[in-house]
């Protein structure tokens, strides 16, 4: 199948990377998953353009991405509403369209949420490394030459013409998520919650935390009431594995929600965000408010099944 020059980057915006569902299976080499921070939006975007659900898409943050079609290509934009436009006219999200040769898609800036996903019908042609196309920015590999996109980059797509017929697919309106700016994240306690006082746990689940500006793809940093460890415990723990959604509490008592770029760490984890709420982490932006709600493992499992059902029900294929 021939790869076609499909997209030219006119402006990369704040940060745009190629991401799929992540790189798993190389944890013993210190390799984190990377991957789309809102996997729900990425999976839906792929379905809308008739791609397999785990295909790589563009993940763009907050503002400024501009792309030009070098050839006709089927696209869909999901995730944050960053006010996408085609040739300056609003583009409907959560629906696939044909972007015609020489048309320009741009993003005017955030209305709600933090990261939008652009799926291209066909297969983005970049090197698969350790089983994934995802960009690992801190280590500089994967995706497009191991880096965020830059002005002038040209993206090749395999057989885009085969996907043009998918244009017009849409997500059922009632399944389209909204991104409120105040988030209640469901958690299960642990693994080190026993190292925190009952009072600290009470504060943690009864407070509103504000997302700090230093937040990025590695973690969501929170300001708010401090979460203090028991006084008879050491400053840090012996480094051990961790996953996205782990909530670390360093010595300063300010919680950090770990995202996909970290595989080990030496700080205590008071709790972990449940799988069903992980995609929301990708939409939390600086200034938003976060609350934590502990639930049982059974409830976490039910929530995950519900989310999976919604993905299947949301897009009619």
């Amino acid at each position: 199948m021939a790869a076609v020059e499909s997209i030219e980057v006119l402006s990369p915006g704040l940060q745009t990377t190629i991401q799929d569902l992540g790189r798993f299976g190389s944890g013993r080499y210190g390799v984190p998953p990377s991957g789309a921070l809102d996997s729900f939006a990425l999976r839906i975007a792929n379905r809308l353009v008739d791609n397999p659900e785990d295909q790589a898409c563009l993940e763009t943050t907050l503002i400024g991405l501009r792309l030009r079609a070098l050839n006709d290509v089927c696209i869909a934009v999901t995730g944050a509403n960053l006010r996408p436009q085609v040739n300056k006219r609003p583009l409907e999200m959560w629906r696939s369209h044909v972007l015609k040769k020489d048309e320009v898609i741009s993003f005017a800036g955030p209305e709600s949420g933090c990261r939008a996903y652009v799926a291209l019908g066909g297969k983005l042609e970049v090197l698969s490394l350790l089983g994934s196309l995802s960009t690992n920015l801190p280590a500089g590999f994967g995706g497009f030459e191991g880096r965020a996109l830059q002005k002038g980059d040209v993206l090749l797509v395999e057989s885009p013409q085969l996907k043009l017929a998918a244009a017009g697919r849409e997500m059922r309106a009632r399944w389209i998520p909204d991104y409120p700016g105040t988030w209640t994240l469901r958690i299960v306690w642990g693994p080190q919650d026993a190292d925190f006082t009952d009072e600290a746990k009470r504060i943690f689940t009864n407070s509103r935390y504000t997302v700090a500006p230093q937040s990025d793809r590695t973690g969501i940093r929170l300001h708010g009431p401090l979460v203090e460890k028991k006084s008879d415990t050491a400053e840090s723990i012996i480094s051990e594995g961790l996953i996205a959604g782990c909530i670390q509490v360093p010595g300063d008592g300010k919680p950090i929600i770990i995202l996909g770029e970290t595989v080990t760490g030496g700080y205590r984890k008071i709790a972990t965000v449940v799988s069903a709420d992980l995609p929301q982490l990708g939409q939390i932006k600086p200034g938003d408010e976060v609350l934590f709600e502990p639930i049982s493992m059974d409830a976490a499992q039910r929530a995950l099944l519900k989310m999976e059902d919604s993905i299947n029900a949301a897009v009619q294929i």
Partner: protein
Amino acid sequence: MGDRAVLVELGGGISPRINQKVRAFYNGIASQRIKGIKDLVPSYRSLMVAYDPLVISLDFLKSQIIEIWNTLDDARLPEPRTVEIPVVYGDKYGPDLEWIADYHKMTPQEVVRLHTKTLYQVYMIGFMPGYPYMGEVPDALVTPRRKTPRTHVPGGSVGIAQKQIGIYPVTSPGGWQIIGRTPLRLFDPQEQPPCFLEMGDRVRFFVITEQELLRWRL
């Protein structure tokens, strides 16, 4: 750990024996190729098993883990490799060497001599792709981290933090005390395996000159 990973702790501290258990346990689980396990992250004293809760239930996974643990046989572990790593010590390649020497009231040459005569063990790869945590530093060389971490530690830098030795695979921020630099490439995602070092490896450092370092890179 949430609804998609379990953390199995195999001991309380940092020791070669506990780490050996982790390595045996890792091999035991990896060799079973259990469907639904997404990743395994072995570390000093624990093994994290990340799983897909839509494919395998926590109860079933736990029963598999316990069964593997009960039939584990350390003796079947492959002999660890011994790997030699070339390092240029001091000056611009090891900007903290003098400070460490002063801290321990010895000469930089003595620091290098102590560092190169010790056989280290790779306890884990973590923090970033290909970053080996090795121990243990001889008591006379145990050094705290830098008070202010550097924003820019060049790839290949060899550092000390307390009783640990680490090597930065790529340029990154970091707070370890840098004593020298190796020309070896520790991580290459296009290779299989992608890491030069693996958990369990024994490592010895040897001195090379700046000329040798530059030639190594060609």
